[in-house]
């Protein structure tokens, strides 16, 4: 595979960083259906990767394998030096280091915003309650909704809920954040407020894998774009390379359909 100069430059800089996530030949079957076919990729520290691909291409399946919401059948997944196996201690460790944001927010409706955020730090990270609450306040400020702490999720708008979900994931002080179409369930006017928070996070040096259909976000923020189809990684490259001179036909077809 030939790569253009810009990609070479970026790749060289990245090569000096530590590997955060390593996937090697990851296979995933649902019954007889193979959803992931030998997916291999390495994500470096502080790298922002956007995953693109048509519906059903296995994007969600892949990132859900990274924190064991789905179990892969063969291949290796190593997160921050810890390999995902059936050992529950490794799973627990990885889950507390990998934050995840879902398309449907999945906030806990019976807990206030503050309790949503402090639950895991208190019970998983064993933080004293006062400390966890101070952290929650700080995070809510960071995502721009400090005044909503005592409300229940059902009383917030979609955009606010998604920002709470981001704050909840950040409260675990994760080293990696996974986003699975975080803006797809939002009305257009709320998308920006969530993307702003994510951009902010990227600038702050968080390692991120983002599945999204927001091309503007991909172009502006991504260090690298991974294009998937039918459970395979078809093409990888910088946004510039990807949007201006894609090599694979399938990528071109995909881009012609969405742009």
């Amino acid at each position, binding site marked *: 595979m030939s790569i253009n100069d810009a990609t070479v430059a970026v790749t060289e800089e990245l090569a000096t960083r530590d590997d955060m996530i390593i996937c090697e030949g990851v296979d995933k079957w649902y019954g007889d259906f193979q959803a992931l076919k030998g997916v291999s990729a390495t994500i470096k520290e502080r790298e922002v990767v956007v995953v693109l691909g048509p519906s059903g291409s296995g994007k969600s399946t892949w990132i859900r394998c990274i*924190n*064991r*919401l789905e179990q892969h059948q063969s291949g290796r997944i190593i997160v921050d030096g810890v390999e995902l196996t059936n050992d529950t201690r490794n799973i*627990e460790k990885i*889950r*507390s280091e*990998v*934050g*995840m944001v*879902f398309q*449907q927010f*999945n*906030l*806990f*409706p*019976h807990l*206030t915003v503050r309790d949503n955020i402090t*639950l*895991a730090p208190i*019970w*998983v990270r*064993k933080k004293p309650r006062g400390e966890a609450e101070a952290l929650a306040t700080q995070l809510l*400020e*960071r*995502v*721009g*909704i400090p*005044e*909503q702490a005592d*409300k*229940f*999720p*059902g*009383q*917030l*708008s979609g*955009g*606010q809920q998604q920002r709470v979900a981001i704050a*909840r*994931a950040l409260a*675990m002080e994760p080293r990696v954040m996974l986003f699975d179409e975080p803006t797809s369930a939002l009305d257009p006017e*709320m998308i920006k*407020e969530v993307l*702003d*928070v994510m951009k*902010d996070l990227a*600038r*702050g040096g968080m390692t991120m894998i983002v599945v999204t259909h927001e091309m503007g976000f991909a172009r502006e923020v991504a260090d690298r774009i991974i294009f998937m189809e039918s459970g395979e990684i078809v093409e990888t490259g910088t946004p510039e390379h990807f949007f201006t001179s894609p090599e694979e036909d399938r990528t071109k077809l995909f881009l012609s359909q969405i742009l």
Partner: protein
Amino acid sequence: MESTPLDTQTTVESDVATRPEEASLPPLEWMQRNLFGGGQGSVGAVARSTSLTVVFTLLGLFAYQQLLNFIFSEETNWNSVRVNLRLLFTQAYPESDYHRIWVSLGLVLVLSGVGLGLMKVGRGISMKKIATWCVGWGVLVVLGVFLRQPSVLVGDDGTPLLADADGVALARDGLGALVYLDGSPAPSQGLSVVRESYGDAISSRSGWLLIGLVLIGIAAAIWFGFGDKRRRSTFLPAIPLSIAGIGALISTTWWYNWGNYTFSTDEETGVSGFNFEPSVKVAETTRNPWTIMFVVLVVAYVLGRRLRGRAFEQHFRGLLILGWFLAPFVTFFAILRGPEFDWAYVAAVDLPLWLAFGIGGAALMWALTKPGIGEVGRVLAVLVLAIAAFTWIAAFFGWFGMLQKVRLSFLLLGLTALLAPNFIGEARQRLTLVYVWTGTITIFHVMATIINTPSSIEVPTEDFAGGFMVSIYVTVFTLLFSFPLGVLLALARTSRLPIFRLLATVYIEAFRGVPLITMLFFFTVFVNLFLPEGMELALLAAVTIAFVLFSAAYLAENVRGGLQAVRRGQYEASDALGLTTVQRTGFIVLPQGLRVSIPPLVGQAIATYKETSLLAIVGVFDFLRMARDIIPNQPEFLGERKPALLFICVIYFVGAYAMSKYSQRLEKNLGVGER
């Protein structure tokens, strides 16, 4: 890091502008709309709804009239209920120990009062509702005054006066035979009782009429004195209002002549009998305790209100819940047992055992929660459980003798040890588990010691006092134990592990496939066969276990319904945050699942409460049995069933209705923040 722009525009403010409400309809229009099909639609439709309304109104009035006729009939002997109130509620609980019952009731009232005081105050009762309520009862009373048949007249000997078919009065001669007033013999056919004239009847009920009219008057005053808006928006606080109502009722014992009806035994002669004294004040032994109970309730309520909003309110609520949890046990022991301790034995056996388990267990918990203990902890916990299991197996085969208390203590120790991994961490966390353990084992040992000690209280049946009290206790204990069991079963049935699923399914289907009454008989006969040697269950304990197991199976299905309503995303979010399975279940899945299942759960609780009346059939002296078997067999009231049966109907209804109301309130309170 710069923060993203604030975006308060999209804040969803909770209803800033209140919804414009429909104005209340004037009474005539209301009737037209609600009773006669609203005057809309075709003539046929109106005629149909009107005739339905008329038919059902007539039926209702007829039933009401018959009920009143029965309640107020001279032939209905309410003395059978009045005299037997104590019997109905507590069976023949010894008079000299009655203070135990009052103390227990007082304890429950303290908990209730404080709880009510701490409760989130709703809007209260609107004046409109009070007006509706007054008018409803007022109309009912006035209707009753006019509907009830005139009373039967009675002669000096207390028997009803009779008349022949033409209405000519009859009397009884010296031999008791029926004759005309002039002495000629009366016919034996076509006789009827003589009733007072309708006018006399109404005037003799003028007191009732006045009450009804006053109620309607109050309603009218509220309706017309307040405008439509104020009627809706003026609220009276519900709880103080109810307490005031109870107070008013209790105050009548001080000034109204309810009459004094007792069953008593003459100390000197040893003869016992019923005393009927109408038109005097109730006995002091009724009035004084109830007055004290009321004061206790009020004081507790005021205390609760004072505590609201204090910094330590949360802790206090926790304490209150613990109190409610312990109250059934504490009161049960207080009522049933006046232990006569053999102090030497207590010092030689009970105390050392408690110390051994308390200190040893505390040390074990401390060790098991050491950070980095890892697998060793789990192995140790399982080991303790294995020891416990072994002591039980040994008991079945009679290998070696051992105090039952020790076996149970080992079991508790093993179960608590299993919790240990959740408390690994700093000293504070580790100490929590140590406290939990010492608390549990202390409570258990105190109770076990009391239960193993002979009691000085002599109750007529070996089990427990009977009557309504036994119904209440069986209900409470059943709910207390079947609820956790049901939740566990539901979790097992939805578990990922097939063995749990299988066991839970078999259990649930087995218990749901057998009628409760069959199970009660089964348990009274068979349960002792399943117990280790030397251990025997009293009848009441056996049936309570049957109730627990039965009710748990139903609760499990209700809870399972709720658990299934919890969305997948909730599990995924919990997992992604790194919560353990136990934490996920306890903090996320159960709170959401149980909330959904509140209505069926309360339905099950009410069903259990009513089903306790089946106890009568398996030989427990419960509420129903008192009314159906015991009272009608008293020489004074031979065959007198109806009054007591009607009475227990009312009491059962009040209890069930209260539970149902409470659940509505609970649903509303918990509904906050639901999607």
